């Protein structure tokens, strides 16, 4: 069980649990700390897009970085297990913030944070709505007491990161396509990656998410066959299966070149909404199908 717990906390389990330096300081870091930083970063990104102030962009990056540090310390100090929505959402948000900072530095002149940061804030907001997981001693479900649960949850989490990135790429693709359809002057308004780059980003995200989702599904099947609590008709199971099927269809059509990039983008957005549905359906229960 301890091994399973360590696996659940994933990258935050490298030090011994009982040896946390500056525990008091860590405990003072709350969700508000990084939500405030991300909100400030978003406002500064908007200001940068509106007025073109370099100082605003630097401020946004610093604010985002401060938020990431607080976010990391929060996850490190709480070490919430990934099978619960709360920790799962916070971890996905953490990955997206890393993506935001990397993208903002790599594509300095492009509008990137304005799309990523609202999603990050939405995910953290959803995590707060779901509430913190119960104390470790109160975990009673089979999923938390076996290795298959964490494997299943981790694979689905990584697949979800792919879905989120695909979702962001799709939103940006549709926005850029709209700009080009209306023949907006290049270099004005929000500066975006090219359509080709956004399409490629979406394609890569889907290609990365699908095998992870499939592997997560297989782990889920094993888990389900041994579970007495969750049935095959559970909404979480069904929504995950639908999500997998949707991805399979998107990939097939994509490979067969039947779908235009715009349609792929729309389907990726649907996939993201299905993911959210799956999360809501499994409210107050461990995540996964």
């Amino acid at each position: 069980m301890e091994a399973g717990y360590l696996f659940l906390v994933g990258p935050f389990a490298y030090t011994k649990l009982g040896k946390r330096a500056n525990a008091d300081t860590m405990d003072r870091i709350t969700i508000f700390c990084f939500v405030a930083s991300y909100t400030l970063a978003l406002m500064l990104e908007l200001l940068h897009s509106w007025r073109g102030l370099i100082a605003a962009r630097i401020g946004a990056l610093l604010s985002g970085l401060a938020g990431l540090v607080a976010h990391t310390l929060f996850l490190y100090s709480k070490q919430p297990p990934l099978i619960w929505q709360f920790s799962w959402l916070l971890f996905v948000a953490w990955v997206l913030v890393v993506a935001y900072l990397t993208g903002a530095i790599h594509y300095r002149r492009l509008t990137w944070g304005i799309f990523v940061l609202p999603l990050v804030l939405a995910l953290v907001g959803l995590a707060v709505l779901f509430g913190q997981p119960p104390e470790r001693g109160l975990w009673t479900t089979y999923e938390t007491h076996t290795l298959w649960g964490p494997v299943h949850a981790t694979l689905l989490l990584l697949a979800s990161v792919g879905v989120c990135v695909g979702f962001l790429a799709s939103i940006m693709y549709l926005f850029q396509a709209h700009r080009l359809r209306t023949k907006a002057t290049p270099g004005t308004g929000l500066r975006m990656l090219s359509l080709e780059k956004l399409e490629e980003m979406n394609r890569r995200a889907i290609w990365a998410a699908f095998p992870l989702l499939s592997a997560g599904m297989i782990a889920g099947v094993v888990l389900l066959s041994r579970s007495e609590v969750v049935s095959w008709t559970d909404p979480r199971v069904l929504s995950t299966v639908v999500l997998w099927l949707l991805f399979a269809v998107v990939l097939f059509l994509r490979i067969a070149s039947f779908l235009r990039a715009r349609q792929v983008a729309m389907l990726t957005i649907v996939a993201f909404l299905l993911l959210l549905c799956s999360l809501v359906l499994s409210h107050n229960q461990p995540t996964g199908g």
Partner: protein
Amino acid sequence: MELLALGCSYRNTAVEVREQLAFTDEQAGRALERLASELGYEAVILSTCNRVELYLARSGPCPLGGDLTRFLADFHGLSLDRVRPHVYAYRQLDAVRHLFRVSASLDSMLIGEGQIAGQVKKAYEKALALGVTGPVLNVLFMQARKVARRVRTETGISQGHVSVSSAAVDYVREVFDHFSDKTVLVIGAGKMGELTLKHLAAQRPARILVTNRSPDKAYAVAAGCGGEAVAWDRLDEVLAQAHIVLSTTGAPEPIVTRERYLKIPRRHTVAILDIAVPRDFDPRIHDGDQTFLFNIDDLMKVREATLARRRDHIAPAESIVEAEAQKFVKDIARRRVGPVIDRLTKSLEEKRREIVTKLFLRLNGKLSDGDKQYIEGAFSLLQNQFLHGPIRALNDETAVTTGARHTLLEAMRKLFHLPE
């Protein structure tokens, strides 16, 4: 020191006259040497398609325009009456301001264009190489470069593209990220498309296909850009392969109608740059999904939008130019006053020492060291108080005098018998 800018530009002179007054490289060299050797000027000649200007400086007074207009007319073999109505002349602060505005592209036909700064630099370097510049023009042109750079970096005056070809490539770059796997199709061989094709070829696409009703023209264009000529009757076939289409024919009717275009099998995104007038492509094929069509009006709109945005930056750019011009003129004036003040101070100091030394010899043995120190201090104080008024008056006049004549400075030289 007198500073003068004299010439004509697109603002007040028709191109026919500008052409007659323009200097070739060789002519500019000859004119610079004559201005320096015969008239004793430091000189730089700026001759571009939009302006012909002489920047001159010398220590004595400069006649405002007259003689130099005659020089300009004589040099080009034109009558004075033909040239005189077109020539403007600026002196001192106005001349400095004018050069700074020209360098910063505030006086250009397309505000914010980057070419003029390079042309000013080239004009100066030519004069420098001929040895006809001096302390004033050297500093002035160095400063003009700095001002142009400052205006470019501190304002948005040079942001965006104003040429149709650059705007076309900007649109293509909004659609495509890389070009190494793209096929560019050029339809027609219009002059309008040459520069756009050059810009597209610079992106290094995988293939450039050129088609034209006249095979010879297609081969000529293809040879010029490293492309491949394709027969006109294969247009639909190559349209299916192309990612980027540049169309510049002189056809009176659209070549590619919507019906024709929809019949072409295609599975990738296409950006079409239709810069022909009349248009070659039916505008209805722009679906904003797989086909993005930009015609000459769209590209002109980009240019207008860019110029409109640049106009918003004129006021801050003018402020920078004005502040820098004022500072430059004051710095130059201080350089003139500085040596006079220095010589005046040294001259009085020598006289004070002489008087004090004689006084100490006369009173030898009667003065203690303390007395000597007190007397020396008193004479120094007298000297400083005596100089305070004239120095202050000189500095004050320098601050307000931007004209060439510095009467107080001349008066001081005469009053105190100071050398030039």
